[in-house]
């Protein structure tokens, strides 16, 4: 902190003040003179610890010394307080090395010297023996006693440190340097001890004097000098901060006096400051002396200069800057309290000069961190200086658009005289020079003022005090307005308005808006003037009469406009709510409707020539914009919310270790909306072509709330956002900011469609039926000439015209159809009989992809057949089931079996078959010895749906195979011997007779020799006892008797009543070792069973029943 201490003694010295302690020298002065210069230079070079009483901290101080020859007269008397100005340390110097010489002369001298000192109770002394060191002496034996020892023994037995020897430092050798250092530090220490005592005494004295301040006759100036002395002492010691405290005390004391001046009686001495101000020399921070009878400003300036000095020495530029403004305020206040009269402008001059001086000093310290520190305070100073200069300018008629009168010129002359002369260096004129110059010439004045103001604004902006900068800007704007530079003025005013608005200080904004309006009026910029007028007229904070007049101004100028001008809504109009009154999804060509509540702040009605809300087409939602679902935006929704003031969404985050223990817990918040607010929102081009418009124009917007209905026919499909509202008033186009959060509307279209419907009944092949082809036109028209193409799969034909023949391909013209109309066209369809799956491909002009309609047809009737056998006779039954919803008229059934004649048994020639009913026809195959084992059969029938139709033929083909009877089967159950009846639970005999019919009537099928029979009794009815199956072989040559085989099985009825006989089934039995042994394979190693077809076996006992009576019991005896 003492980096600048080297120059410090010079500062005091410049003024002729030397607060270094006075040190006397006695003895051989010529010896001392050789070391004097070295010593006085060496002393302040290093610090020394200063221990003080009263628990004050230990300080490292620098102490210098002022050497004077010893003089008895100048010695201070006992109990003197101003020891500072007295010799307070005494030295005796001798070069004597010879003990005898010492004894003879020096000793007496020292004795006399010490006696002088002791008589004045001075204990601070030092005897120095200077030795001339040379090479020879060291080689000699060390003398038993030196002069130093002698002196010590004689004078300083108890204070050994009061005697010191030093080797003459003439030659720079290491040993001399060491002894020299010893001397310097000893002197420094002892001197400080002495000095400290003196300072303590001085402090005590100052305190005493201060206590007496209320006594009559106490002189502030005297006290001031005294305390300043203390300050200077501390300054000399390098304790600048403590020196500052002394000045601060003086400052505070004086302030207190002045503050109490009017109330206290014993402050009469202050009247010495009450003389009129006759000179107002600029404040000088350079070292200076205070005059004996300073004026208030001089005294104040002096104290401030000293304080600044100390602050600068401790590198606290910022503090000096920060103290300046309060200091100037104090001065102004004290001038007022003491009722000091001054010529007009004189104080302003002084204030200006003082602030400029401080600023100039600050400018010298231009390290970045220093600038950073003091800018906070200099900004206000710049502003203050510019203000004062402006005041002076106004006083002296230097403001733009004016010329100084002779009276004002006279003022300038007297002010300049009072400032005195303080010429600065050539390249940097002093504040006084600058002020004088500015007062002499209007141009310089304007330039200086603007420069200062710009600096003030710049500095304010730099330190982040934007609002203050704006206020200065406002001041500057008024100045520019006087200069006629309306553009610059407008820029400053505009900035100020923006800042006020952003802080919500509407009244200030409105007031500034008034200035802006005047500014634009002066500039004859009618567009901007209208804008400002509009803003003023809509400002509720301003008096209604003023608003009216500006409103009238606005309308007056609007008429004169040659082209439309655009203007934002700002505060003039406010959208309070937006509601979509139509559906959110609007069909094409329907109406989109929106209701808007607009609050007008204009003082009178405005006539809107146009009113619309823009629609912005939106392909996909934007991510950075808020959307509002629903139809209504209330005032609350529309309110702009400062993202910085929003509640943060905070969620909990817990992190677990691997073992599921909690590792860390915390909260996290995603700052969602932290993006910059654009200072000038991007101007979106308003597309008025797609806008909801007011229906009745012109409409009146009355002051206050207006509810307006807007609508638009939805022409284009898509999603739309409500964007900005636009109001045209004559040529004024008012535009609102985009409506946020966004409300979306959707316009949809319905495309045409074509459908092919079948009627409720199932589709039948072979019958012409009607399907419905339905063409629905959607929300837009279809070119009437466009063609719908229908293509059918093979086997399917259709036609739409009633009279035309059926075809496979069909082209239909759409025709003139209204939107949302639906046309039903009957389509006659005919699928070939016996085909089932078909499809119709429809090509429509509006969709490139063809539409495929699959169709399922079923035949009009279904047919089944069965072969029945009675011994050798064969019957074919054909069963027909109708599937047609309407009755089917059937005619001429016919069965035709190839090479076998048939006889009709039950065949009505004409029938009506209704839906779902079946009907059977029966034919007997004539008994013929047909060699073929199979025959092709064809059933045909004629049918028609309605009486008027012509018959169509229905054919059904089937094969009759294996229809010859091979075996006849007969089963009889007889009761066991001795029983008359079959009883439940009693074993009966089942007599099974299998006869080979072929053996009887022909030689064929000889290979089927073995037949296996199985009794398939129902388990709840019959129990088969013993075997249930067996194989019967018919012998080689079939004789009449061995063509019939008989088997008896035991069966037992389990229930009573008429029971069907147990079912017996016979199958072909093919043994494992057949004749085809050459094809031996795994499957052939086992015997196989093959079923007979139904025509090959005739079961005689089928349908037979046996009466079984209940088992004999006690209740039911035989």
């Amino acid at each position, binding site marked *: 902190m003492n980096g600048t201490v080297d120059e410090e003694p010079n500062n005091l010295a410049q003024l002729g003040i030397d607060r270094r302690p006075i040190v006397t020298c006695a003895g051989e002065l010529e010896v001392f003179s050789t070391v004097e210069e070295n010593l006085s230079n060496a002393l302040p070079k290093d610090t020394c610890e200063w221990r003080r009483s009263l628990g004050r901290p230990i300080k490292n101080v620098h102490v210098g010394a002022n050497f004077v020859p010893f003089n008895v007269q100048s010695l201070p008397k006992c109990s003197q307080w101003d020891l500072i100005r007295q010799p307070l340390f005494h030295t005796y110097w001798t070069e004597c090395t010879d003990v005898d010489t010492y004894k003879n002369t020096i000793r007496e001298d020292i004795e006399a010297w010490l006696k002088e000192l002791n008589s004045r109770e001075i204990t601070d002394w030092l005897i120095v023996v200077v030795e001339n060191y040379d090479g020879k002496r060291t080689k000699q034996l060390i003398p038993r006693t030196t002069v130093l020892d002698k002196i010590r023994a004689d004078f300083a037995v108890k204070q050994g440190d009061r005697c010191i020897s030093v080797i003459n430092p003439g030659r720079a050798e290491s040993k001399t340097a060491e002894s020299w250092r010893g001397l310097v530090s000893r002197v420094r220490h002892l001197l400080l001890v002495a000095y400290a005592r003196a300072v303590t005494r001085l402090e005590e004295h100052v305190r005493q004097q201060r206590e007496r301040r209320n006594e009559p006759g106490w002189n502030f100036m005297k006290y001031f000098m005294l305390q300043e002395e203390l300050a200077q002492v501390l300054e000399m010691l390098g304790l600048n901060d403590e020196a500052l405290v002394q000045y601060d005390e003086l400052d505070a004391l004086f302030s207190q006096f002045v*503050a109490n001046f009017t109330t206290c009686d014993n402050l009469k001495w202050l009247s010495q400051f009450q003389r009129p101000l006759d000179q107002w020399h600029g404040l000088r921070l350079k070292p200076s002396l205070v005059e004996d009878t300073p004026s208030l400003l001089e005294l104040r300036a002096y104290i401030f200069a000293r304080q600044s000095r100390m602050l600068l020495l401790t590198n606290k530029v910022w503090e000096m800057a920060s103290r300046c*403004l*309060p200091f*100037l*305020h104090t001065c*102004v*206040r004290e001038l*007022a309290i003491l009722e000091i009269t001054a010529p007009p402008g004189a104080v302003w001059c002084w204030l200006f000069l003082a602030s400029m001086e401080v600023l100039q000093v600050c400018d010298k310290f231009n390290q970045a961190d220093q600038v950073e520190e003091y800018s906070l305070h200099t900004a*206000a100073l710049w502003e203050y200086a510019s203000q004062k200069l402006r005041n002076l300018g106004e006083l002296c008629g230097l403001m733009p658009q004016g010329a100084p009168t002779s009276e004002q010129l006279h003022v300038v002359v007297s002010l300049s005289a009072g400032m005195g002369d303080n010429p600065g260096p050539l390249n940097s004129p002093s504040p006084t020079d600058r002020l004088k110059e500015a007062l002499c010439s209007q141009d310089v004045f304007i330039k200086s003022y603007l420069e200062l103001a710009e600096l003030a604004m710049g500095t304010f902006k730099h330190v*982040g*005090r*934007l*609002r*203050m900068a704006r*206020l200065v800007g406002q001041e500057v704007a008024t100045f520019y307005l006087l200069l006629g530079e309306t553009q610059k003025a407008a820029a400053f005013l505009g900035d100020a308005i923006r800042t*006020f608005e952003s*802080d*919500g*200080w509407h*009244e*200030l904004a409105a*007031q500034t808006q008034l200035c802006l309006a005047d500014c634009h009026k002066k500039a004859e910029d009618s567009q901007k003037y209208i804008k400002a007028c509009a803003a003023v007229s809509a400002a509720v904070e301003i008096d209604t009469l003023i608003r009216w007049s500006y409103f009238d101004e606005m309308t007056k100028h609007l008429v004169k406009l040659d082209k439309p001008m655009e203007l934002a809504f700002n505060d003039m109009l406010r959208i309070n709510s937006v509601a979509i009154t139509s559906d959110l999804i609007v069909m094409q060509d329907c109406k989109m409707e929106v209701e808007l509540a607009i609050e007008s702040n204009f003082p009178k009605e405005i006539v809107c020539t146009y009113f619309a809300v823009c629609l912005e087409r939106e392909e996909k939602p934007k991510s950075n914009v808020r959307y509002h679902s629903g139809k209504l935006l209330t005032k609350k929704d529309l309110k702009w919310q*400062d993202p910085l*003031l929003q509640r943060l969404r905070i969620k909990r985050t817990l992190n677990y270790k691997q073992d599921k223990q909690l590792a860390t817990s915390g909260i996290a918040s995603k700052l969602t909306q932290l993006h910059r607010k654009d200072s000038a929102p991007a101007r979106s081009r308003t597309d008025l072509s797609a806008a909801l418009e007011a229906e009745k124009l012109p409409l009146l917007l009355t002051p206050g709330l207006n509810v307006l209905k807007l609508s638009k026919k939805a022409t284009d499909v898509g999603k739309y956002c409500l964007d900005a509202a636009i109001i045209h008033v004559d040529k004024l186009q008012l535009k609102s900011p985009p409506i946020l959060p966004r409300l979306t509307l959707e316009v949809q279209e319905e495309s045409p469609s074509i459908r092919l419907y079948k009627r409720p009944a199932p589709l039948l092949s072979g019958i012409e039926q009607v399907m419905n082809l339905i063409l629905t036109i959607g929300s837009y028209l279809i070119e009437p000439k466009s063609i719908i193409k229908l293509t059918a799969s093979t086997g399917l034909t259709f036609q739409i015209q009633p009279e035309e023949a059926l075809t496979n391909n069909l082209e239909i013209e759409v025709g003139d159809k209204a939107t949302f109309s639906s046309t039903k066209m009957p389509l006659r369809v005919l699928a070939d009989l016996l085909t089932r799956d078909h499809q119709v491909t429809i090509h429509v002009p509006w969709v490139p992809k063809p539409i495929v309609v699959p169709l399922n047809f079923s035949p009009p009737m279904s047919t089944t057949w069965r072969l029945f056998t009675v011994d050798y006779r064969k019957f074919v039954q054909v069963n027909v089931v109708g599937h047609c919803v309407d009755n089917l008229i059937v005619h001429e059934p016919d069965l035709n079996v190839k090479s076998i004649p048939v006889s009709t048994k039950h065949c009505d020639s004409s029938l009506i078959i209704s839906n779902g009913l079946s009907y059977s026809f029966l034919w007997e195959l004539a008994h013929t010895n047909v060699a073929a084992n199979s025959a092709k059969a064809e059933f045909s029938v004629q049918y028609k749906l309605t009486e008027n139709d012509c018959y169509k033929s229905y054919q059904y083909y089937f094969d009759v195979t294996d229809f010859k009877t091979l075996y006849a089967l007969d089963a009889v159950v007889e009761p066991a011997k001795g029983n008359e009846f079959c009883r439940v639970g009693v074993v009966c005999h089942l007599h099974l007779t299998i006869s080979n019919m072929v053996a009887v009537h022909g030689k064929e099928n000889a290979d089927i020799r073995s037949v296996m029979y199985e009794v398939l009794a129902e388990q709840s009815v019959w129990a088969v006892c013993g075997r249930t199956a067996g194989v019967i072989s018919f012998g080689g040559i079939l004789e009449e008797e061995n063509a019939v085989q008989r088997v008896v099985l035991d069966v037992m009825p389990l229930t009573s009543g008429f029971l069907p006989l147990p079912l017996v089934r016979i199958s072909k039995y093919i043994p494992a070792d057949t004749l085809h042994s050459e094809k031996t394979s795994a499957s052939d190693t086992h015997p196989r069973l093959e079923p007979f077809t139904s025509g090959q076996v005739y079961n005689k006992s089928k349908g037979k029943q046996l009466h079984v009576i209940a088992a004999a019991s006690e209740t039911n005896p035989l």
Partner: protein
Amino acid sequence: MAVCAAIVGKDNSPKFFCCVNPDEELAFQFKVLSSLDIIEEKLNPTNKSASDNRELYLGQLYSLETCKIYGYVTNTKIKFIIVVDSTNMALRDNEIRSMFRRMHSEYADMVSNPFYIPGEAITSKMFDANIKSIITGTV
């Protein structure tokens, strides 16, 4: 006695303004507005001000030739500002501080009014009268 008192919301917009001399209101509004710069500086957490967070009184914000401006900030960042004439020597720091405290409690009472919507400008006549009596020292 102070000459002007103001209450400024957390968004820096004025909520209440009262002046002993209504003619000076506009001039004071400018002064109060510019003092917000300094309040913001003082509230800036990056500032190395070691001041106690619980201390709501901000002290003198800045002084002009004619007046001194004092500030006080509640925990919810509602700013109270008092403007004192600079010739007024009687008002010491302590008096100002207690003035602010009274204002704060008055404000708390006013906010408790269910008919007051927080964030709106204060229009209560009673509140106005109370604040006026606080700053003029007639309580």
